[in-house]
């Protein structure tokens, strides 16, 4: 997936490989560079497997407390197309979307900032044949692999709890990865502009309202119309609806638009990140 995506990328950064066919061939040959970074992360996390595993449990705890706990009090709410569904079935896909966002943001903001400014990881890597755009791709690829593992675990738990009623739910995993892609790329692009840890308040400032108001915990219909329009523009809302439609077995053509929107955000973030890393590190 990562090497395919990198071929779609126009060259970024100031350290460009040679132009022309030969250059493109050489590029394709060394695009494995982003895989090397993923390999490095896989190795580093062997020393921190508990941190890795905790990512599985966080959304599950939410599911148990909100879905099963609160769900008993709430009863049924309007789901896709206005059809009434039990609250725990309503909230579960929303939680999957939220945890995909949070996981991606965490990887691509805090972790990337640390590697960029403190661990000097990228300085070390750019002394090797690896290029800035490959770094960006590798970081995002890693965030996606992690996100995919968590999404599979969460989907299996939904299945076990009887919250899945449609084979479309299989697509919830790639859907969750797509949400992760959008937020990881945008988060990482934002991180390249950050100067200090204080700037991370902006990350929280941006993700907290998304987390709370993107129709994750209750249907959009509770809001007045103007507010609904604003919320419909946010990527997390689109992700929540995407996953909810899939898990509850009501996919429509709108699904493609939502997916395209998230993919476009991710690609834009990826491009910006590659350029910014070159500008920050190759001085």
């Amino acid at each position, binding site marked *: 997936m990562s090497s395919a995506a990198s071929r779609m990328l126009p060259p970024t950064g*100031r*350290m*460009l*490989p*040679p132009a022309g066919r030969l250059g493109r061939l*050489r590029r394709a040959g*060394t695009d*494995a*560079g982003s895989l*090397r970074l993923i*390999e*490095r992360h896989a*190795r*580093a996390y062997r*020393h*921190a497997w508990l941190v890795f595993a905790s990512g599985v449990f966080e959304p599950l705890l939410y599911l148990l407390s909100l879905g099963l706990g609160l769900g008993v009090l709430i009863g049924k709410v309007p789901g896709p197309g206005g059809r009434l569904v039990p609250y725990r079935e309503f909230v579960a896909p929303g939680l999957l979307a939220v945890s995909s966002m949070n996981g991606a943001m965490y990887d691509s903001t805090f972790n990337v900032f640390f590697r960029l400014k403190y*661990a*000097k*990881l990228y*300085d*070390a*890597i*750019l*002394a*090797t*044949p*690896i*290029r800035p755009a490959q770094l960006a791709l590798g970081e995002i690829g890693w965030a996606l692999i992690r996100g995919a593992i968590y999404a599979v675990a969460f989907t299996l738990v939904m299945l076990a709890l009887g919250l899945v009623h449609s084979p479309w739910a299989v697509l919830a995993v790639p859907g969750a990865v797509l949400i992760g892609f959008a937020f990881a790329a945008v988060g990482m692009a934002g991180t390249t502009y950050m100067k200090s840890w204080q700037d991370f308040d902006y990350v929280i400032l941006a993700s907290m309202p998304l987390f709370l108001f993107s129709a994750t915990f209750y249907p959009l219909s509770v809001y007045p119309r103007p507010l609904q329009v604003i919320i419909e523009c946010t990527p997390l809302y689109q992700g929540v609806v995407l996953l909810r439609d899939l898990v509850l077995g009501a996919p429509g053509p709108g699904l493609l638009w939502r997916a395209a929107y998230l993919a476009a955000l991710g690609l834009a973030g990826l491009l910006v990140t590659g350029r910014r890393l070159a500008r920050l*590190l*190759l*001085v």
Partner: protein
Amino acid sequence: MLVRARGLTKRFEDFTAVAGIDFDLYRGEAFGFLGPNGAGKSSTMRMIGCVSPPTSGELAILGLDPVRDGSAIRARLGVVPQEDTLDVELTVRENLLVYGRYFGLPRKVIRERTAALLDFVQLADRAADKVDPLSGGLKRRLTIARSLINEPEILILDEPTTGLDPQARHVVWDRLFRLKQRGVTLILTTHYMDEAEQLCDRLVVMDHGRFAAEGSPRDLIARYCSPEVLELRFDPELHEQAGDKLKDFPAERAELLADRILLYVTDGDEALAAVRETGLEPLTSLVRRGTLEDVFLHLTGRRLED
């Protein structure tokens, strides 16, 4: 020719760190950059390492253009940056394994080289340790081992032995000397004159982004230093005053350091007698032969006539 630079310049905003330098490096030689803090040594190293695009001028490395072919050039370089950039989340051995993978080397090759390199820098017994708690000197040795994982043709060393104890420095010198014997081209910066004298076939003294002098260590000493040097140390109270007085002393040159005054003369004992005749009585005095350090001070230091 491995590296060719003409009018090589690096500017940061409106500050010029490297102000148009020319040099050629040949295969198998050891080339040193000396110079005071801020002279532009690291900026030059980073341009040669293809991690810093030149602002202007020409630079060719291995016959390639560092901006266009940076990735291909870096595949053939080894770099020891001024500040360690080891991967602190990994162990000593993993640092080499992972770094080798960045070069796209097969795992089997990396494993063999890793074992040999850890022996080479005497870190084999620490292979399974985390990097973070290692002492500065051990980290430096690991960084040197890491820079060799791709069997580079050119090794760029930015202050390789800063912070090492004397034993460790000798180990590093020995290792670098062996690499040179094997045909690896060394480019290094250092603040240690003995290191430059030991390792470098040719060197340049850099100041304010320019070359103040270049040549072999022996040439430079012959060209910029007198046969003998008289070192005088006065009571700190009298230091400046003595400096003023010695300004017109008939020496080839005089150098006022923070703690000592150096007189460059043909005959040290004669000069000491002459100093005493002026009524100055140094606390201590020493007559010695000229060294590279004197050349360095002459070219970059503060002179009495300033």
